[in-house]
């Protein structure tokens, strides 16, 4: 771990204990977020992205539970030293995690229509975050709110501060959400598909805004999306997720130019923009399996075009292709030693 590491997720497992059985929504995830950098988490819908990123604020809701793993948060102290806390270990209702939420780590969500309560004005919902984490008076908090609304590009912020969310467009609401997230001056901003519900033009504007603010505030960004097109624009590093596991992790150029995992390759072939430059548009065959019936061996094997006979029985381990490039696929493992290892058990 370097001094620039902000959050390290280690072997995180989050399971949902439902009546029908246990859903292993996140099943051994490792991630590292660097200060000021953007890590993008990509994968098809249902692969566990939202659940994983909520764990960073410890807001996984029942019947889900963090069953094991660490979420190490490295905090820089005023005296120049730093301390490390384990978020996964905190009481989800306790003071310690509540002081992190909205202040050190902030989050914006996918649904700008429903993420703000229609009962309170936009301004009061932003001020709430400020009043919670600072000693400001209401008047100061209101002034800061107006300033933030202006900063995220909301016209006439003095008027809009007293407006109710349902009177704003989706794009404006998402801007307000961003203003709320910024109000605590977080070190990490988690954005869970923040542009998915918006039209294309608004989507581009919001992305530009987020990139600009990230520089201004020097904050790290954990950007969750199922859209690789967005990843290309925003990410420094990319983690590709499939059925609760990170199957490939590399810097953004490597992911786009030299993807190694068959799932990443298939994802890239399925995006119109990028596929045009390469082969024909080629959607990934098959469906995401039911969360209650995870395939044995490599979870991707029923849909993989390159699957080996061993793929249905042996679970791939992490292979380090180089310092920055990790992949979980048997194609890159020494199968002879793997088999030798499996045999005794």
């Amino acid at each position, binding site marked *: 771990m370097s001094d620039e590491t902000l959050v390290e997720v280690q072997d995180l497992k989050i399971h949902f204990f439902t009546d029908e059985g246990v859903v292993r929504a996140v099943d051994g995830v490792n991630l590292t977020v660097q200060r000021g950098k953007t890590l993008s988490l990509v994968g098809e819908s249902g692969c566990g992205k939202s659940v994983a990123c*909520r764990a960073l*604020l410890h*807001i996984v*809701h029942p019947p889900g539970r963090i069953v094991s793993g660490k979420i190490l948060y490295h905090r820089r102290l005023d005296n120049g030293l730093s301390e490390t806390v384990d978020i996964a270990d905190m009481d989800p*209702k306790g003071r310690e*995690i*509540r*002081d*992190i*939420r*909205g*202040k050190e780590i*902030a*989050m914006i*969500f*996918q*649904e700008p229509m*429903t*993420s*703000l*309560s*229609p*009962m309170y004005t936009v301004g009061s*919902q932003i001020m*709430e*975050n400020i009043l*919670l*984490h600072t000693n400001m008076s209401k008047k100061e908090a209101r002034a800061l709110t107006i300033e933030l609304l202006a900063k995220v590009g909301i016209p006439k912020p003095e008027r809009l501060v007293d407006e*109710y969310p*349902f*009177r704003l467009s989706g794009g404006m609401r998402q801007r307000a*959400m961003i203003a*709320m997230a910024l109000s605590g001056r977080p070190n990490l901003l988690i954005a869970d598909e923040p542009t998915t519900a918006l039209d294309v033009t608004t989507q581009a504007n919001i992305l530009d805004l987020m990139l600009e603010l990230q520089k201004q505030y020097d904050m790290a960004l954990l950007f969750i999306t199922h859209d690789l097109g967005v990843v290309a624009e925003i990410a420094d590093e990319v983690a590709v997720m499939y059925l609760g596991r990170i199957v490939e992790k590399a810097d953004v150029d490597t992911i786009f130019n030299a993807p190694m995992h068959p799932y990443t390759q298939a994802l890239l072939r399925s995006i119109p923009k990028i596929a045009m430059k390469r082969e024909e548009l080629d959607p990934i065959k098959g469906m995401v399996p039911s969360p209650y019936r995870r395939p044995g061996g490599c979870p991707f094997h029923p849909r993989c075009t390159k699957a080996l006979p061993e793929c249905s029985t042996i679970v791939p381990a992490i292979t380090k292709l180089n310092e920055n490039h990790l992949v979980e696929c048997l194609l890159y493992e020494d199968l002879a030693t793997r088999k030798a290892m499996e045999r005794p058990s």
Partner: protein
Amino acid sequence: MWKYLARRFTYMVFTVWVITVISFVLIQLPPGDFVTNIVSRMISSGGRELTPEYEAQLRALYGLDQPVYVQYYKWLRNIVLRGEFGWSFEYRRDAVEIITERMPMTASISFFSFLFVWIVALPIGIYSAVRQYSIGDYVFTFLGFIGLAVPSFLLALIFLYISQRFFGQAMIGLFSLEYADKPWSWAKVVDFLKHLWIPAIMIGLGGTAGLIRTMRANLLDELNKPYVETARSKGLPEFKLLLKYPVRHALNPFVSTIGWMLPSLVAGEVIVAIVLNLPTSGPVLYRALQQQDMYVAAGFILLLSVLTVIGTFISDVLLAILDPRIRLQ
């Protein structure tokens, strides 16, 4: 908002008018009238039969020989112009006197029942939703269903038995003996309140169970909404968050039902009041309907429906105050 309230107000006036028509017609619907009633009572008590001429005279005296719409018109005109609700054949007094004697009691009991229902049901509903499937949730669900299943008159009878058996006196009525015929005084008010809670709880109990279920269901719907997650991600303490966001949202549908609780409370009151011998409007209304004492019955129904409709209007106003989506439409 003013447009909304104006529309609601128009509905309100219209509804009251429709209710007056319907209730007046309904009261006249059973065969016979008050005169037939007198006749059959006299016969059954061994009296002489009245001559048809005398019956006709009686009918003419009370205006019962006129067509329904004429009777209705006169009735409504007297209420609007003179505040007169007609004559009670049964009590031989102005119907309005009987009504004004009884209505305040009914209003107080209903109000306290209503308070009881809300004060008990809302916290339990919230608890049951937040701790869904906990032991407490199951216990309250079980008790709630019992409350729903046991009719209030049975509760009243059980209560009568217990008070007679263990306290040596049946706690019936709304006043102790020494105050029953005295004029109102501070001591009488206190005595009244002391008696009031018993019927108030009995009448409210059935409604409590229903309200607990509704509150639980409403809140469960809200608990996982994205705005709750947003609030939580700000670091709000859990209890404050609960009250400020999901509970606040879950309450709105209730506010709009306040007005409609009155009829069901009054309906529940009739039976409890008969069993406990309470001087409220329920028993009188019940008897007036039986005896075809039409102006008393019509007057009660009119007043109760006016109260209900006003209650509904008030809840509409409250809803507009509480929910900006309605206020700003």
